[in-house]
């Protein structure tokens, strides 16, 4: 396991503006034709924090991610990035701010190789225009080689070197999950949204992924929001946990507190019928 050098990862701890939190999600209300997906949900994520969102199926966890990414436009509320309102911005603009994401059902570019997928993650960190690209010699080649070096660092970090030139559609599920994480890391994000990174994985793969998440946090100091059903993982690694149920926030706090919260127990285990 090689620790990635300074060639990827971001410069955090730099001048902090007039904002208190990295991300503020305030009274966000999202509904689809009468079905309420998020009902006045609020939370904040600080720099360097590993924030987890849990809840039963359909609680609104992925919808929360889609709101942050700009894929969904909430009807009410505000979403602030470093104090700046980003609600209603296009997904690609939000990505440019430094928000990266992995998806619950792998959303890799199936016909591209592992390497190409990771290089695509460098899109926001590179500038080559199409005409530079068409000429190749000069700026395009220089940037291409620099991107390649950065991509190789990530490939090394995630231990996927042997699959480098494979089209991702051919790879096993666990490796695809890792490639997706690599693509997100290539964006040199400040906030990483992980949507069920260990869903469907066996114990060994889960432990590998947990190790990568902890390494990302400690060595690259990237803030993370983690959506996950694996309670063991969440309670082990998260700093704070938010619990959603039917689009409502029913609890927020440190893992130990959440485990004792009666509302959470009720949401997960159900309520005793009064007789």
């Amino acid at each position, binding site marked *: 396991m090689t620790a990635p050098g300074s060639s990827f990862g971001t410069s955090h701890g730099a001048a902090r503006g007039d904002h208190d939190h990295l991300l503020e999600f305030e009274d966000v209300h999202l509904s689809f034709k009468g079905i309420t997906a998020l009902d006045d949900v609020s939370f904040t994520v600080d720099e360097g924090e590993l924030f987890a969102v849990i809840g039963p199926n359909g609680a609104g966890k992925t919808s929360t991610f889609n709101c942050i990414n700009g894929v969904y436009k909430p009807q009410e509320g505000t979403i602030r990035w470093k104090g700046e309102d980003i609600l209603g911005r296009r997904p690609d603009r939000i*990505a440019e701010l430094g928000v990266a994401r992995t998806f619950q059902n792998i*959303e890799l*570019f199936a*016909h*591209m190789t592992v390497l190409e997928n990771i290089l*695509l993650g460098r899109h*926001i960190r590179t500038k080559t225009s199409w005409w530079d690209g068409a000429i190749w010699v000069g700026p395009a080649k220089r940037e*291409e080689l620099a991107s390649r*070096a950065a991509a190789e660092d990530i490939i090394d970090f995630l231990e996927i070197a042997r699959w480098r030139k494979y089209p991702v559609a051919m790879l096993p599920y666990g490796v695809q999950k890792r490639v997706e994480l690599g693509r997100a890391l290539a964006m040199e994000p400040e906030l990483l949204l992980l949507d069920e990174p260990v869903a469907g994985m066996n114990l060994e793969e889960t432990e590998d992924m947990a190790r990568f998440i902890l390494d990302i946090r400690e060595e690259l100091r990237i803030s993370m929001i983690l959506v996950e059903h694996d309670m063991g993982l969440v309670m082990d690694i998260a700093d704070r946990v938010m619990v959603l149920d039917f689009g409502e926030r029913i609890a927020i706090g440190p893992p130990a507190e959440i485990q004792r919260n009666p509302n959470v127990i009720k949401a997960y285990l159900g309520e005793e019928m009064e007789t």
Partner: protein
Amino acid sequence: MRSRPRLYTSYASEVALLPTWTQKTAALVFLLCLALIPFDVVPGLSFLADSDWLTILSRVAVYAIGALGLHILSGLAGQVSLGHAFFVGVGAYTAVILGGEASRTLWGLALPIWIWLPASGLVAALVGALIAPVAVRVRGIYLAIVTLGLVFIGEWIFRSVVAMTGGAQAGREFPAFALRIWKEDTPFLDFSTDGPWFGIEMTSEAKTYLLLVVFLVVAIIVAKNIQRTRIGRAFMSIRDRDIAAEVMGVADTRNKVIAFALSSAFAGVTGALLGAFLGRLVPEGFSLLMSIQFVAILLIGGLGTVSGTLLGAAFVIILPRLVQDFTGLLASTVESGTGLLSTISGVFVSTGMEDPGIVSTLPGTSPGLNVAQFNVVLYGLLLIGFLIFEPLGLYGIWIRIRNYWKSWPFTY
């Protein structure tokens, strides 16, 4: 290193257009053969040196350039377009307005090739960039329909603006391949007349062929470079998963518009080259059939690869000639003999008014299809066949053959 001399030792050598020694050598030999064909010195390829075949090879080069454009739009960015013929037309008529001779009824500025050729690409790209924002609001089959409409609108405009196109049926003369500094009478380099070049006697077909091969090589390099850099990966990401691409920071509409413009630029240059190469074009030429030909090139060659596109162009353009030769061969078999071979041939060709057959060699109306009609049917059958049985096209077949020999004598 001595024991493993061909390892990659730098990223620069790995991302090269032709990364391995084998590929470099093969490309060099192939290019050399292409360049030497008109001089009739390559053993086994001397039949290609004849003017007839050189014209066909030139046409392959022209169509391959246009197909590379569609490869960028459909193969890389995944946007199905049936409107390629429209942009070929835009390029052709830009070239003829700038480079063509004016007359009482026709517009023309008679400018030299170094103006009209780049301009044809630029204007087509501009038109593409103007239309694209509207077109890319829809995707898949809907985009195909929108671009289909474009071909019909385009054909109507081309027929109507007689001063530009010479009108339906008639068409007009296009500027020939001749390099002039400005409007002087004797060109600096003339590709359209027979005569010696550097002491070597060459026909106009040979000169045109060599010029078009140079253009094609440039187009291939540009297309390959686009594919292997940032913009190419952005196109492919939109093709594979557009929403994920957006979340990764790839601006959807912007990149689709760039893909459209780039593709149209290739199409525009093709239009200009086609005009100069054929000498005269009629506005009906830029029809749906031409668009289908480009789509056929992509699908038969193999969607998404430059090599596939080139294979497809060669196949689709040479096919009619092969059909014609083959029909001729069958017809002569029928006429000459009485054996079994002649009977079988008789089923396929009809040589007389009373003789039923699939393809007819008689001029004018006759039972069966004529060779051109049969080619259209053949394109259709090939498209269906490739889509069902070999979606990766000729390139896919090549990969399978290569892998077979790579792992031989094992099956995998």
